């Protein structure tokens, strides 16, 4: 079993790579397309994966940010993410991991409670975003946010490190997390 590490290879020139992990291929593809449409000074690379670990025989660039996408309508997608988390090195969680919960808009279809994902993100000390990826406008906004975050995680923004961003986000993003 290979474990994904943030610093296992040298960075590519001006490249920033994001890895989207989730069971819903179509949604991930749409999100990836939206991200590539964003105006960005770095060379964006978006990798998609159903689950971790990744096959070890493939040559891939250094991963700067992993986003786990949980579909609130499917218990399987949560289970898949939880299992994938075991194949990620602890140092990744110093700001280079995010959780994205989709499908919260259709409350009656949800089979996973919001608090469950909140607790998961809290356990791994990582930011959690809620976004209905099926709505185009929301998806575009999310893509923009992820691109900005990725640029910081790839070290393309002078003076801000991933951990720096993480500690900034904790206070503003989820002030109620401590109560969960």
């Amino acid at each position, binding site marked *: 079993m290979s*474990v994904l590490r943030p610093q296992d290879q*040298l960075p590519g020139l001006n490249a920033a790579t994001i890895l989207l992990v989730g069971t819903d291929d179509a949604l991930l593809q749409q999100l990836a397309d939206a991200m590539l449409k964003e105006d960005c000074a770095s060379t964006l690379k978006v990798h998609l994966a159903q689950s971790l670990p990744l096959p070890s025989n493939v040559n891939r660039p250094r991963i700067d940010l992993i986003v786990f996408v949980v579909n609130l309508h499917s218990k399987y997608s949560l289970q898949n993410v939880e299992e994938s988390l075991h194949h990620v090195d*602890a140092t990744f969680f110093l700001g280079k991991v995010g959780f994205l919960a989709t499908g919260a808009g259709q409350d009656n279809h949800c089979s996973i409670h919001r608090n469950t994902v909140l607790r998961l993100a*809290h356990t*791994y000390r990582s930011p959690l975003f809620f976004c209905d990826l099926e709505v185009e406008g929301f998806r575009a906004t999310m893509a923009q946010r992820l691109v900005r975050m990725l640029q910081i995680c790839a*070290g393309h923004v002078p003076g801000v490190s991933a951990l720096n961003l993480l500690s900034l986000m904790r206070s503003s993003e989820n002030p109620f997390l401590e109560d969960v």
Partner: protein
Amino acid sequence: VSQEDLDPDSTTDIEDVTDTKEELIKKCEEMWKDMEECQNKLSLVGTETLTDSNAQLSLLIMQVKCLTAELSQWQKETPEIIPLNEEVLVTLGKEEFQKLRHDLELVLSTIQSKNEKLKEDLEREQQWLDEQQQVLESLTVLHSELKHQIVTVSESRIFNELKTKLHDTKEYKEKLLITLSEFLEDHFPLPDRNVKKKKKNIQESTAQLITLHEILEILLNKLFDAPHDPYVKVSDSFWPPYVELLLRNGIALRHPEDPTRIRLEAFHQ
């Protein structure tokens, strides 16, 4: 961890070797070497995965360590700047200006399109205003016309009303006259010729007598035709008993100086 200060252009254009570029490239290569060293050191560190139970605590500890390290790094570091010679500054300035120009062009085009839109809006509003004014004008004209009509209508109505009143009054007068003449004919006939024969000796020479109706008519006409001198000379054709009747009942009055003249009492005054 600012490993991406590499400028892609500086590595490609090596033919045109100037001192500045060489210097920059040297710097970059030094940095890259540092990074490779760090990478080697990092790869020796073992991996560590998390379980749900230990995740929070170990992550928090790691975060504290890393943030402390970052802090001390920031405190130690003096910001390094790119060598400030003319060429670098010029290039950077150009880039900056180009970026600014691009941004400003965007702003310009946005503003222009906005202006265009506003102009269209203005035109549309102006047109609308004109139309409204035209509507207002025609309505005003219509209004004044209607007002005028209302006045004439009321005038003609009053006129008509007066006409009918006048007509009614005339009719009433006509009726009164007819009734009066009938009454007079029925109740005040001319003296019977046969009865009169007895007194023939006295009134032989009397001219043709006229009816009471005719006497009243003469008096009435005189009163209205010559209000300044309404007296009528009592002629022979006036039957004396009737003259006496009129005088006694106060219908006619004798002239205060000339007993041969009488007038109708002015009932209407």
